[in-house]
């Protein structure tokens, strides 16, 4: 384990109680659905029962006639807007597509696509009224398989869509929205130099983030043209931007107040209900609340892409990779925008490669429009590469961790997308797993006749920087407030408070973190890309330094010396030229009215020194060969976390990421019937793991400081979801001798694979 020797931290690296903890465990924290306003109405969305259909007519008269119903909106109530790319989290989204996604125009493109919205005096009346809306549909052929959707004769979702990213413009109707290629070296020569080549194809299904709190929005439109939206979102500024585009309102006329958030994982980075609620409020003059059911969340909000992936990698006798080729088609859902671009950037990044080619395709089909999900696009891709790497190592008789060490990226390695890595800790995570108590102890023998195996896999995630603003103000008692615009989905309120406390020489509990609305803090990009502790933390660091600079000026005024003669250390100012002059922050705070007034440090940043994240995992599984059921016996994740600000929350992020990865690996899937209707629309049949399905997940924090951050911070939240499916597939192979290439590795599939192998 490395640590940043030059820093001796007092607060960073400790485990204080989270600032929002008491409110959450006592039930006082206000989530989106807790918001209630005087005179509030309740909205409900009518959704498509078809996977693909033309809307011939919508008759809302019976719904409007129901007592208690105040208004109904359909696609006709929305302005036609042009193409406009807006950054949402790590991705860009076309506002015109988003407008069509939240309310269908002319055609419905997936089961659950919004067709109309009703607002009434109670949620029950609103729901009843949706059933009175008569929609005449003309069903159209649908397509839900990514390879079928790419074919020339596939049903077309958007007649005007043309493939982007190609060298030559085509005028052909298509479902391929975009294509991406990264290539270097001489692929043929690379494969010719290989002693062993492994080539396999993989299929993964759409999966949902599975956040506990369903999507919600409360909106109030005022007669003066201003609107306010209360919503649990990862990106209040993105909600303002997107709602402004969709309703053609000035951004400054929309205020977004972020509520407490019950899980996001990338899923709450876009808009669904916000523009509907605001438009319904505009129509009725009253505040409007909308809350989705779980059924709506699963059918109509953004899961992440299913995919078809082909991986071909060759290696020489010495175990060095000579060439790698990857082909990936990702389901975008009903509108363009799968994470294929970032998948292409990350898929081969863990390895030092001379010859490579990566091709990616963004494909629309009749499923909900995808949204971000923890390291978007990268878990699917890693299933392919990390299991092929495992097979190569096996065929060459090389230990799979040693194979990764031989080929692993390090400082100076060129990424597939071009740039060279700065200091990274990939090899350190491999060594940490090698030396871990888990890897060092033999796999215990099964006592019940079940089969056991151990697998390893690694993962990479680029992490994000983007823009953040923070203020740090000093209270009259010498405590401080930290205000940011970053909704807290991973303990970031506390990590930001700890960074300010470190700089100011305070205790973590003496710094009060606040997540502000869009009118109370400068622009801050969405919580996503594992960026908040890195980038917003950077702003907090700078803002706290700004506050320290002002505190020194105030002390200098009091002492009638120059600011350069004042030092700030351990929460106190002292004078270098007069040893008698010294004040604690508490004393100085009380004297600020006589020293030049209040102190507020502020910073708006766009940090460029993003430090990517690497991780290596080991897992032991037990397989019931008769049923195909896989039990996770033991799991250890070693991750380069840069500098762990709050190690307990970092461990929690790693455990949470692994838990989601295990669910993705074993049981979670979007199950559509032959008519294109989603059948598992609740948590009973959308099978996320429960606490009974997971062991305690062991974590090893490897600290290789990010040279691009004053404290060495790297994003930590996303990368732990990347290796689990590959690690489990590799463990399964060791247990039963079958290479699984399809997610989820659910009991029927594992059982079938074992039966086929045994003949």
């Amino acid at each position, binding site marked *: 384990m490395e640590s940043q020797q030059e820093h001796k931290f007092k607060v960073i690296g400790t485990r204080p109680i989270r600032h929002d903890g008491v409110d959450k465990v006592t039930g006082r924290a206000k989530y989106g659905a807790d918001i209630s306003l005087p005179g509030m109405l309740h909205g409900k969305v009518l959704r498509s029962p078809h996977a693909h259909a033309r809307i011939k007519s919508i008759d809302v008269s019976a719904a409007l006639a129901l007592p208690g119903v105040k208004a109904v909106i359909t696609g006709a109530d929305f302005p036609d807007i042009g193409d406009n790319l807006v950054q949402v989290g790590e991705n860009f989204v076309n506002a015109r597509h988003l407008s069509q996604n939240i309310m269908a125009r002319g055609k419905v493109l997936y089961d659950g696509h919004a067709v109309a919205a009703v607002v009434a005096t109670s949620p*029950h*009346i609103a729901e*009843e009224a949706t059933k009175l809306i008569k929609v005449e549909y003309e069903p159209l052929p649908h397509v839900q398989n990514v390879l079928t959707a790419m074919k020339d004769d596939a049903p077309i979702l958007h007649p005007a869509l043309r493939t982007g990213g190609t060298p030559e413009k085509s005028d052909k109707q298509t479902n391929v929205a975009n294509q991406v290629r990264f290539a270097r070296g001489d692929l043929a020569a690379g494969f010719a130099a290989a002693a062993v080549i492994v080539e396999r194809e993989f299929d993964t299904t759409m999966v949902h983030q599975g956040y506990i709190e369903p999507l919600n929005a409360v909106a109030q439109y005022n007669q003066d043209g201003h609107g306010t939206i209360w919503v649990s979102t990862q990106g209040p500024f993105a909600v303002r931007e997107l709602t402004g585009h969709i309703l053609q309102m000035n951004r400054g006329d929309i205020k977004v107040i972020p509520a407490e958030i019950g899980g996001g994982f990338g899923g709450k980075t876009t808009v669904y209900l916000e523009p509907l609620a605001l438009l319904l409020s505009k129509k009725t003059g009253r505040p409007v609340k909308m809350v989705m059911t779980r059924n709506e969340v699963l059918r109509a909000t953004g899961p992440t892409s299913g995919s078809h992936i082909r991986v071909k990698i060759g290696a020489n006798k010495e175990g060095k990779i000579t060439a790698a080729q990857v082909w990936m088609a990702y389901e975008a859902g009903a509108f363009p925008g799968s994470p294929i671009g970032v998948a292409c950037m990350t898929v081969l990044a863990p390895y030092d490669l001379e010859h490579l080619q990566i091709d990616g395709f963004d494909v629309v089909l009749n499923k909900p429009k995808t949204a971000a999900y923890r390291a978007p696009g990268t878990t699917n891709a890693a299933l392919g590469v990390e299991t092929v790497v495992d097979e190569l190592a096996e065929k060459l008789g090389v230990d799979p961790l040693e194979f990764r060490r031989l080929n692993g990226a390090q400082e100076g390695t060129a990424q597939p997308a071009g740039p060279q890595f700065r200091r990274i800790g990939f090899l350190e995570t491999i060594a940490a797993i090698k030396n871990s108590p888990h890897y060092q102890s033999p796999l215990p023998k099964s006592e019940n006749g079940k089969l056991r195996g151990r697998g390893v896999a690694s993962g990479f995630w680029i992490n994000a920087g983007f823009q953040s603003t923070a203020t740090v103000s000093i209270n009259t008692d010498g405590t401080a407030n930290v205000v940011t615009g970053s909704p807290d989905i991973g303990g970031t309120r506390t990590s930001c408070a700890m960074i300010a406390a470190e700089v100011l020489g305070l205790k973590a509990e003496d710094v009060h973190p606040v997540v502000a609305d869009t009118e109370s803090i400068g622009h801050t990009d969405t919580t996503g890309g594992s960026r908040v502790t890195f980038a917003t933390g950077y702003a907090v660091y700078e803002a706290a330094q700004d506050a320290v600079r002002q505190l020194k000026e105030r002390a200098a005024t009091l002492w009638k010396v120059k600011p350069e003669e004042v030092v700030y250390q351990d929460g106190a100012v002292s004078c270098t030229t007069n040893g008698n002059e010294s004040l604690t922050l508490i004393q100085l705070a009380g004297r600020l009215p006589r020293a030049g007034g209040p102190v507020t440090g502020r910073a708006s940043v766009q940090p460029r020194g993003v430090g990517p994240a690497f991780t290596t995992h080991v897992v032991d599984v037990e397989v019931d060969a*008769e*049923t*195909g*059921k896989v039990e996770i016996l033991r799991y250890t994740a070693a991750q380069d976390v840069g500098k762990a600000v709050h190690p307990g929350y970092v461990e929690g992020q790693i455990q949470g990421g692994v838990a989601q990865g295990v669910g993705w690996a*074993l*049981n979670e899937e979007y*199950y559509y019937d032959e008519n294109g209707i989603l*059948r*598992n629309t609740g*948590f*009973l*049949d959308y*099978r996320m*793991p*429960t606490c*009974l*399905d997971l062991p305690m997940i062991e974590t090893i924090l490897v600290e290789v400081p990010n040279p691009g951050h004053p404290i060495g911070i790297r994003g930590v939240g996303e990368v732990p979801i990347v290796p689990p499916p590959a690690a489990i597939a590799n463990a399964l192979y060791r247990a039963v001798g079958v290479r699984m290439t399809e997610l989820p590795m*659910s*009991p*029927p599939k594992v*059982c*079938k694979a074992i*039966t086929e192998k045994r003949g």
Partner: protein
Amino acid sequence: MHAITYESPKSLAQALSLLSATGEKGRLLAGGTDLLIQMRAGVRKPEQLIDAKSIPELQVLSFNSQDGLRVGAAVPCCRLIEDPAVRQHYPGLVEAAGLIGSVQIQSRCSLGGNLCNGSPAADTTPALIALGAVCHVASSKGTRTVAVEDFVVSPGRTVLQADELLVEFRIPAPKPHSADCYQRFIPRNEMDIAVVGVGAAVTLNGDTCTAARISLGAVAPTPLFAKEAGASLVGKPLNESTIAAAAALAQQIAVPITDMRGTAEYRKHMVGVLTRRVLTTAAERARAK
């Protein structure tokens, strides 16, 4: 929105007269662990709920070695699971009842509710069929008995007429060297509906099987009594080959569907696996007695 009335009769007679008055518009409410969810989803729309929990006859739980076990239709599963006699004599029924929901759910749900809900995947139904349980049904016109395997007619529908209610189950006293077992398969370790469920009860005389009943859940529109599979074991020792033969017979009557919980092929395979497993365990238990 539609209005619902709620009645909580304190006697069987009162309940039966309410039922005959409301007919199809009424619905018995025991624990409500299925019914309330179905009402919320709009699957069932009763206008009157008749709460079964305060009817004394539906709360009976008694055992004696001559007549066996009587379980009132609304006895919550937690009472059944904790009853010493039930635990001793009917471990398979305890296994099945213990698989339904969490501790909170088990304090509300009942054998009667589980059966009357009519699901082919109900966990306690195959356990009851294996034990040869009989339903006692009453209406204001009289009473009748129905074997559990004949009770469900299609998914969500039972033999009960609109004015009838299920009063109790009678389960025969176990013969010497008898035991039962129930297992289901789910992809996770909790929070799931059976992909396949299999119940079995066997009686041994020395090494020879003198009686065996096998039952299947979630592999047909209704829970199934695998009569031939059980009968194939009578007069034979319970060993690997006789058990495998019975499992193959059980597989023959399974007519599963492919859905989000499993493929038809997988379900058929699992009938074989679970039948072998429950017969092996039931035989071990019977030998230990």
